[in-house]
C-alpha cells in the first residue's frame, strides 16, 4: 500500500503507475519517471501540469512511445503523462472534410474512421502501426506523401493544449480557412511537447485517392536517378510521392527484387493516382522520362490505399532500419533539391571514410534520411558513427541546409549534436519557450538548443 499521491487524486488511483517494471516502459533515453498519470480529459492534464509547475517537477507527455528517442536526453523527468486514454474522435464532419480528435487516438484507428467516408490524413509516417496522432504531431515526423499533400502544418487547422503553467488554451479553429489570432497550433508541430501538452487536434481531411499506382524505376547511378527526379518535377505530372533510395535503403523499405538487376544501385519510387485515363498519361510520360535517363528496370504495383503497399513499406523505413540494427544512426538532412546530389555524396564519403554502411532515402523535396550502419563491434562503431555524423552535418551546413540526428543509441548522444549546430534564431525560440512554459517543466532539455 503506497500513500495516495496528488496524481491519484487528479486521475484516480487506477490510472496512476509507479511499479518499476511499468515505469521502465516510459523511459526516455534511459531516464525513468517517478510516476505515470493517465488522464482522461484536458482538464485533468491542466491540473497535472499546474501541480507539476507548482512543485517544479518535469513532465513529459507520451503517446504510444514509439518516438521518444528523438531529441536530447531530458534534463529531468518526474511525471509521464500518458495520453492513451484521451482517444476520442471528438468531431468528424465528412461533408466539410474536417476532423477534431484527442491526442491518444492511434493513426490506425483514425485511418479506419476516415476510410468509412473514403477519406484520410496524409500522414504515412514512421511507426504507423502503433503511433498516436498526438505523438505524430509533437514529434513532427514527415511522410513520403508530403510531396503532394505537404506536412502537418499545411493541414492542421487548430489545436488545444496545456501550457507549462497549466493554462488550457487553443488556437486556430475547425474551419479550413482562418486567420483569427496567432497560429499557436503550428508551434505544437515538432516541438516535442516543450511548449504545451496537446489535448486536441483539428485537421482538414482529404479524399482517399483512387486508382493508386506505384512505380519503382532502377538506375545504375545516382546521377541517372536524380536526372529522372528533375524531369518529373519540371513536368506537368503531380505525383503523390517521389523518393530516391540506394540499394541498402531499398532493402529496409521492402523494395522489389529487381534491386541489383543490370547493376542497379539507385531506385526512384514514385506514386500517383487517378482514373485509368489520368494514370495512363503518367505511365506514358514516366516511361519516356525513364528512357531518357537510362533506367535499367521498372516495376509497377497497384493498390487503392496510399497508406498501404509501397508507400506503407517506405514509411516503415525507419522502423525497419532500427529493427535490423539497434545501433543504426539516422541522420535527417534538409537541403535544396538542387543539392541532393552533393548531400548524398557527402554522406557516401563520410560512410566510406569511417567504414560504415549507408542507406539513403531521399524525398524529392530535399529531405533525406541517411542511416549509418556499423559492424558488430559497438565500441569501435560509436566513434566511427560520431565522426561520420559530424562530417555529414558539417557538409549539409556548408550547403546552407541542416542535418539532425533523430535516432541513435541514447548513450551516444553525449558525443553528438542531435539538433545540429546552434541556430541564429535560437534566442527567438527561447523567448517562445519562456512565454509558453515559464518554469521550464515541459520536456526540459530535449529540444533544439537544450530548450
Amino acid at each position: 500500500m503506497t500513500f495516495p499521491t496528488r496524481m491519484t487524486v487528479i486521475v484516480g488511483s487506477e490510472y496512476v503507475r509507479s511499479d518499476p517494471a511499468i515505469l521502465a516502459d516510459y523511459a526516455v533515453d534511459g531516464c525513468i519517471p517517478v510516476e505515470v498519470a493517465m488522464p482522461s480529459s484536458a482538464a485533468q492534464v491542466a491540473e497535472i501540469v499546474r501541480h507539476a509547475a507548482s512543485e517544479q517537477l518535469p513532465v513529459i507527455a507520451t503517446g504510444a512511445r514509439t518516438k521518444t528517442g528523438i531529441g536530447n536526453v531530458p534534463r529531468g523527468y518526474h511525471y509521464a503523462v500518458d495520453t492513451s486514454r484521451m482517444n476520442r474522435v471528438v468531431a468528424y464532419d465528412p461533408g466539410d472534410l474536417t476532423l477534431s480528435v484527442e491526442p491518444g487516438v492511434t493513426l490506425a484507428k483514425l485511418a479506419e474512421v476516415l476510410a468509412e467516408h473514403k477519406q484520410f490524413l496524409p500522414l504515412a509516417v514512421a511507426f504507423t502501426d502503433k503511433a498516436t496522432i498526438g505523438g505524430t504531431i509533437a514529434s513532427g515526423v514527415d511522410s513520403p506523401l508530403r510531396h503532394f499533400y505537404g506536412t502537418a502544418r499545411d493541414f492542421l487547422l487548430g489545436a488545444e493544449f496545456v501550457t507549462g503553467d497549466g493554462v488550457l488554451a487553443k488556437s486556430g479553429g475547425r474551419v479550413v480557412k482562418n486567420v483569427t489570432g496567432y497560429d499557436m497550433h503550428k508551434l505544437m508541430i515538432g516541438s516535442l511537447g516543450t511548449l504545451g501538452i496537446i489535448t486536441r487536434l483539428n485537421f482538414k481531411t482529404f479524399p482517399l485517392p483512387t486508382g493508386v499506382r506505384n512505380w519503382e524505376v532502377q538506375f545504375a547511378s545516382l546521377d541517372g536517378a536524380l536526372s529522372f527526379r528533375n524531369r518529373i518535377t519540371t513536368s506537368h505530372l503531380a505525383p503523390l510521392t517521389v523518393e530516391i533510395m540506394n540499394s541498402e535503403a531499398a532493402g529496409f523499405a521492402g523494395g522489389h527484387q529487381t534491386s541489383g538487376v543490370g547493376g542497379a544501385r539507385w531506385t526512384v519510387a514514385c506514386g500517383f493516382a487517378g482514373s485509368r485515363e489520368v494514370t495512363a498519361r503518367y505511365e506514358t510520360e514516366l516511361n519516356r522520362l525513364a528512357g531518357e535517363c537510362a533506367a535499367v528496370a521498372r516495376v509497377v504495383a497497384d493498390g487503392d490505399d496510399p497508406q498501404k503497399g509501397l508507400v506503407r513499406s517506405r514509411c516503415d523505413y525507419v522502423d525497419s532500419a532500427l529493427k535490423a540494427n539497434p545501433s543504426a544512426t539516422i541522420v535527417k538532412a534538409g537541403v535544396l533539391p538542387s543539392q541532393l546530389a552533393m548531400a548524398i555524396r557527402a554522406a557516401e564519403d563520410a560512410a566510406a571514410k569511417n567504414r560504415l554502411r549507408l542507406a539513403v532515402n531521399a524525398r524529392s523535396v530535399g529531405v533525406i534520411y541517411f542511416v549509418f550502419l556499423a559492424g558488430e563491434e559497438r565500441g569501435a562503431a560509436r566513434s566511427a558513427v560520431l565522426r561520420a555524423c559530424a562530417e555529414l552535418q558539417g557538409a549539409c551546413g556548408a550547403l546552407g541546409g541542416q542535418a539532425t540526428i533523430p535516432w541513435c543509441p541514447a548513450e551516444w548522444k553525449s558525443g553528438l549534436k542531435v539538433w545540429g549546430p546552434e541556430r541564429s534564431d535560437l534566442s527567438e525560440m527561447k523567448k517562445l519557450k519562456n512565454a509558453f512554459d515559464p518554469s521550464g517543466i515541459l520536456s526540459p532539455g530535449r529540444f533544439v538548443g537544450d530548450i
Partner: protein
Amino acid sequence: MVALTGAETRDYSRFVIARELRRDTLMATPLLDDLKSLLGVDSVLHRPEELLLYEYDGSVETARPTCVVFPRNTQDVVKIVKLANRYNVPIVGRGAGTGLSGGALARRGGIVIGFSKMNRILNVDIENQQATVQPGVVNSDLSAAVAHAGLHFAPDPSSQRACTIGGNVAENSGGPHTLAYGVTANHVLSLEMVLPTGELVRIGNAALDSPGYDLPGLFVGSEGTLALVTEITVKLTPLPESVRTLLAIFETLDDATETVVDITSGGITPAACEMLDGWTLRAVEAYVHAGFPLDCAAVLLLEVDGTCELAGESAEAVAEICRAHHAREVRVAKDAQERDLLWKGRKNAFGAVGRLSPTYYVQDGVIPRTKLPATLRKIDEIGKKYGFQIGNIFHAGDGNLHPLILFDARDAEQFRRVLAASDEIIQFCIDMGGSITGEHGVGMEKDRLMPMMFTDAELEVMSRIRDAFNPGGLLNPEKIFPSKKGCGEIRSRPLTANGVARA
C-alpha cells in the same frame, strides 16, 4: 441587438479619434529631423495633407500617423526602429494599404514605415522553385517575373495587382485559388525581420525542415504585431498544364450553395469555387460587362486544373454536380480571354458595388462548408430585419463569406445598425462552428470580437507571445487584442474612394 459572448457591452472606443496623438503631427520634432537626416527629406512625410492617404486602408477604419517614412533597405528599417525606441513612438508597417481590417493604420499615431521603396525581387531560383523578395514587391509582379519558367506565386488576393507580399505575409492572405493551393503561410519558407527592439533576425530556411519551432508559421499572419519583415523567401508553384473555368448559373440560392456542399463532400477540390449572388452579379455586370446573366439567383465561378486528362475529367464531374442541382446553364470558358473576363468580374466586384452605395461594410466570417445553405438564408434574413441590401460574393469552396452590407456612413444611426447586423452574422458563423475572419485579419476592426472566439486565458497566452517579441508594445499597438473600452464617441465615416478593397 444580439448578445455577443464576452462583449455584452458594445465597445465603440475604436471610433474615438485620439486627439492627443494628433497634436504631435504639428510639431517639428527632433524625431522628424532625425528621420530626415537618416532617409532624406523626400522620404519622410509629415504635413497633414501628405498624411491624409495614410489614414486609410481598405477597411472602414481611419487613424492618422505622426509621419510616414520610406526605408530603402533593411539597415534603414533597423535604424528607424531604433529611433522609434529612443523617442518611444509607435511603429506600423505598411505595404500598399489594401488591407481590410486596419492592420496598416497607426492607431496610436507614430511612424508608419511604408515599404514601397523596398520592392526588389532579390533572387529567383527556378531550379528549386523559390524566390526571395523585399516586402514591397507587388504580389502579381512576382508571378509575372517567373511566368516564363512556368511558375507562379500561388496566393492571389483579389487586390494582387496592388497588394504587396510583405502585406500578404503580415495578414496571411488568401485569395480565390487558395482553396487548392493554400494561403500565404503555406508558401513562406524563411523571413528576415527586424524585431521591435531593433534586432535583425532570420527565421526558417530555404531548405526544408530546419530544426526548431515553426517560427515562420507563427510570424506569418501575426498582423505586423511581432516584427517588421524585410526579406521573404517563398515557394513558387508550377502552373498547371490545363485550366478549365466554368460558370454555373442557378435559379435559386439554395441550389448554388448545395452544389458547393456536394462538390466538397464528393471529394473534388476545385482550384477555385467562388459564388456571386444575383444582386452582386447585376452590379458587377453593369461595371465589368463580363457576360454574366442578369436574371439568375446566383452563379458559381469554378475552376479545375491539372494535367489535360485530370482537368477535363474534373470539369465534367463538377458540371455534373451543378446540373444535378438544377443549374440552368454551365458555361465553360473557351479560351484564356473568356477566362480572364470571368475573373475580372470576380476580382473587381467590390469596386462594382462601390459604385452603387456611398459605403459598404465587408464581413469575412467563415463557416463549415456544410452550413453554407443555412448561413446564406440567415444572412438574407438579417438583411431584411435591419433593412439593408446585403450582397454576397465569396470563396464558397472554403466557406469564407464576404457579405457586403450597403449603407450610408454619414448617417451615424445607420452605421450603428450596420455593426449590429454584421455582429449578428458573425455570431451566426461562430454558432455554426466557424470563425470571425478567414483572410482579412483581426486588426483594429475585429479586436473587440476576439472574446467571441477565445477565452481570457487564451488571449493572455497569445499576449505573452506578443510581449515576448514586442515587449514595449511599440510595434503596431492596439491590434488583434481587444482594447480597453472608451468613452464612445461615434465618428461619422468620411467617404473613401470606391473599390479599393480586396476579397
